[in-house]
């Protein structure tokens, strides 16, 4: 009875528990380094056991294995290069960049799954998950890139947006996005995904562009929470527990961390997201 799927899911459970312990340990100075190590080992375990699952299912052609190998090598190379080369004071924008890539990965997984979807599997719940994954992932991707650009002090990201009423514009975008996702879920049609991507791209820009550079750490913490939620949504798309657990773990703890960081800066989250640019910190914060 112990087929490969059951074994793999049990190992996923081990990895998820290790993520929980790792994250908890990272919040304390004495255990932080070990916590990060445990979490990274959990990730390695998840990747290895997933490769085993693909192997046991005989699910990949040699082209598939080649793509997997190429992707892992290129990704590791870029990741190692950036992590080693970056200067201390550039670390926050590097985190923003990594976070954006994580969100983008969720979008592409959702897209790839959508392309391979048979009519029988295009049920309301799967289509809803694909839509949400695309929506949150895309906002995370572009929002994080804007945060990166602002911290890197690239000029285009420091100009105000040429939109008269940005908040009304965002509200309209949000409504359109919800309708598009609802259409995907209720009809099982895939084409609205393109428009989800386009509208969420615009939303990612218009949400983060008006926020001042000093508030960027809080924004990155919030976007980190979003990328977790995007991963959780992807977990619903491919029906995978380790994605659901780890994603929602990051999503929820990210919100808490965002609040903690706001408090430390004497700002309220509402103020950061909708308030004026860099109000000097603390003149009218802390009313939460």
């Amino acid at each position, binding site marked *: 009875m112990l087929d490969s799927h059951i074994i793999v899911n049990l190992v996923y459970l081990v990895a998820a528990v290790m993520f929980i312990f790792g994250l908890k340990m990272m919040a304390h100075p004495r255990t932080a380094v070990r916590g990060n190590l445990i*979490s990274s080992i959990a990730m390695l375990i998840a990747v290895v056991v997933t490769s085993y699952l693909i192997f046991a299912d005989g699910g990949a052609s040699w082209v598939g*294995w080649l793509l997997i190998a190429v992707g892992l090598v290129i990704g590791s190379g*870029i990741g190692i290069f*950036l992590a080693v080369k970056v200067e201390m004071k550039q*670390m926050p924008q590097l985190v923003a960049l990594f976070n954006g890539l994580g969100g983008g990965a969720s979008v592409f997984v959702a897209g790839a799954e959508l*392309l391979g979807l048979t009519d029988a599997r295009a049920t309301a719940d799967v289509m809803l998950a694909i839509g949400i994954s695309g929506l949150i992932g895309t906002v995370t991707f572009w929002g994080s890139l804007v945060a990166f650009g602002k911290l890197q002090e690239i000029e285009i990201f420091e100009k105000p947006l040429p939109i008269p009423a940005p908040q009304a514009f965002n509200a309209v975008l949000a409504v359109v996005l919800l309708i598009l996702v609802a259409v995907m879920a209720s009809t099982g049609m895939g084409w609205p995904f393109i428009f989800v991507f386009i509208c969420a791209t615009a939303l990612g820009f218009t949400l983060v562009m008006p926020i001042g550079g000093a508030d960027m750490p809080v924004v990155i913490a919030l976007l980190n929470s979003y990328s977790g939620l995007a991963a959780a949504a992807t977990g619903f798309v491919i029906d995978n527990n380790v994605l659901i657990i780890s994603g929602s773990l990051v999503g929820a703890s990210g919100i808490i961390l965002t609040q903690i960081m706001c408090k*430390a800066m004497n700002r309220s989250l509402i103020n950061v997201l909708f308030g004026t640019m860099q109000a000097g910190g603390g003149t009218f914060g802390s009313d939460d």
Partner: protein
Amino acid sequence: PKYTKWTALVGSITIFVLAVFVGFEIITKVPPTLHTPLMSGSNAISGISIVGALLSTALGANWFASFLGLLAIIMATVNVVGGYMVTHRMLSMFQKR
């Protein structure tokens, strides 16, 4: 009992909700010096979408889906490998002091 795909969905939603509660409870007091490393470390965890990227690339419904899968693997791997390494660098920086 009748086992349908909705049974599985309810199971997934249960897991989701419980994990959200764990996430809310897991972090309470964090010293300010650990804010950025914690953010960076939990960001690396959200790179778990690498698992989805591997699975959908292996599935590769057509060449475009495979291409998207490859991009997803690259992006998620940068997130994971870079994320853990830069977090480690930040933390070892604090420990020296």
